[in-house]
Each structure stands twice: as structure tokens, then as C-alpha cells.
């Protein structure tokens, strides 16, 4: 995978498979601390300690569980390649939070990629899930950007109408793209 945003799309799929009803994707880019941190939090069925250990092992998991495969080990590898780490916080019946951090300036850090497309794909595909996207940035000078998209109001307003109706789709896509763009770090690296 070439983008962190693609990993997020992949990991979010696990949250859906785990029966999560409220799923939150968070991305923080901080140039002052030189960190890029991402997390996905769900209120799905969670995992016991043993299973949580297994999902980090690509060879064990692919054979035993169908809902989690190579995705998490791949993200872990991507994080560790850029001096970051992956952590898993989970409890049966409560949900799961997966956090991956990356050294922002590391030469091997993959690009964040198209966050808006990732989020739109999830919104469109799983309209019954309550999605939240939080994207926060801090540049070298300490200036902050923030885009929070909670789909509650959007869905209340749509009142059952599908997001894939052309005009609605255009609206939502525009909203996401503009929101992410407005908070993105203005640097050329």
C-alpha cells in the first residue's frame, strides 16, 4: 500500500466487521513534535488479550480469523519503518482502538494520501454506521488546522436519502475535500 489513508480504509473495514456502530478516524500531523499519528476507534465486539496478540502476527491470523488478515501487520510494518509504532487497545464487548504513529520527517514514511477519498468510500459504503473524521495539523510555527466531520447532522438532513444520489454525492465529496484541504499542512517537502 502506498498511502497511510489506504491503510486507514483497510483497518476501518475491521471495525465494521467487528460490528462497530460508532467509528472514529483520527489523523494528527504535528511538525513541532515531528509526528504523524493516526487512530481508528470503534465500539465493536473487541478482542481478548490472546486474540489481540494474534492479530499482530500475519501468519497466525490469516489462518485463524477471517475478519483480520494482513492489514494490521502491514500497518505495523509501515509505522516501524519510519520510527513509529503501532498500539492496540481493546477489550471484549467494549471495542478497539488501533493507533499508528510515524516520524513525520522520516524518509521512509509513506505519504498520508487521499484522506477525503478514504472517508467518502466509508460513508457511502456503510451508511448505517456513525462515522467521525478528525484531522488536525500543527505546523512548525505552531499554527493549527482542524477539520472535524461528524456525519450525524448530514444524515439527519438527508433523512434517508442515499448519499449516492449525484447532487448529494457532489456536495458531500466537496465538503470533505475542502475540509481536508483547508487544514492540510502547507509545506512542500
Amino acid at each position, binding site marked *: *500500500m502506498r498511502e497511510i489513508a*489506504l491503510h486507514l*480504509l*483497510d483497518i476501518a*473495514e475491521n471495525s465494521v*466487521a467487528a460490528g462497530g456502530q460508532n467509528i472514529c478516524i483520527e489523523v494528527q500531523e504535528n511538525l513541532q513534535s515531528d509526528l504523524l499519528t493516526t487512530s481508528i476507534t470503534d465500539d465493536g465486539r473487541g478482542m481478548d488479550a490472546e486474540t489481540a496478540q494474534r492479530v499482530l502476527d500475519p501468519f497466525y491470523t490469516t489462518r485463524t480469523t477471517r*475478519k483480520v*488478515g*494482513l*492489514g494490521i501487520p*502491514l500497518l505495523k510494518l509501515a509505522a516501524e519503518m519510519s520510527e513509529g509504532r503501532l498500539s492496540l487497545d481493546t477489550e471484549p464487548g467494549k471495542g478497539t482502538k488501533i493507533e499508528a504513529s510515524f516520524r513525520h520527517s522520516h524518509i521512509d514514511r509513506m505519504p498520508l494520501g*487521499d484522506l477525503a*477519498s*478514504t472517508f*467518502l*468510500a466509508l460513508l*457511502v*459504503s*456503510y451508511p448505517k454506521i456513525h462515522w467521525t473524521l478528525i484531522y488536525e495539523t500543527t505546523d512548525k510555527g505552531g499554527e493549527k488546522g482542524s477539520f*472535524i*466531520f*461528524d456525519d450525524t*447532522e*448530514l444524515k439527519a*438532513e*438527508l*433523512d434517508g*436519502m*442515499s448519499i*449516492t*444520489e*449525484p*447532487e*448529494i*454525492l*457532489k*456536495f458531500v*465529496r466537496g*465538503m470533505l475535500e475542502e*475540509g481536508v484541504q483547508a487544514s492540510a499542512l502547507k509545506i512542500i517537502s
Partner: protein
Amino acid sequence: MPAIKSLEELKRVREETLEKKKVKAASGNVQVIVAMGTCGIAAGARDTMKSILNYIETQNVSGVTVTQTGCMGMCEQEPIVQVLVGDQTKVVYGKVDAQVAEQIMKQHVQNGTPVKDYILPL
């Protein structure tokens, strides 16, 4: 949260869409399912979905449901897209990149003719 102003705009867009739907309610339901397991995503499924959504938006295609599914066990054929038109049998396509997706949307979803070259023999 997005500004209230934009939600006001959404309200207007929604009403307009309702009006349009009343005009052309027929055509039947179409479901497009993009496989988005780790294998699908790594093979480019998000771009495939983006292309499908882009087609709906630019060509103004109403009444299409777009969803996703996990790995189907045919990872080498990813990105895989399934198309279901009304109560017809499901058609499964393999190696659907952004361009093929556009072709499927035009030929199959809009005009009802499956794109033979990319159908997977199941």
C-alpha cells in the same frame, strides 16, 4: 462540524434531488459492490470506487447503491466489482481499474449490457 450555512445548502440540494427523483422514478435499482479487503485496497479498489462515484456525479446517474465487501478469496483478480441490476443475476468483474469501472458504469449500469471482457467465470 461543517458550518450551518453548508447544511442549509444541503437541504436545498436534497429537495431538488427529491423533485428530480419524482420525474424519473423508474429504471429499477442497481447495486454496485466493490471488494475492499486488504488485497482489494492494495490492488487499487479505492480508485475503482472513486471512479464509480465520479461517474455517478458527472453523468448524473440516480438510483445506484454503492457498497463494499471484504476479500472474496480471489485476490489475484482484484479489484473485483459486482453489479446487480434489479432481479437479474449478479455479474462479477475482475481487474477493474478506474477506466474499466467507468466502462462498466456506462455500458452495464446505465445501458444494461454487461462488459464481457472483464467478467470472471465463476
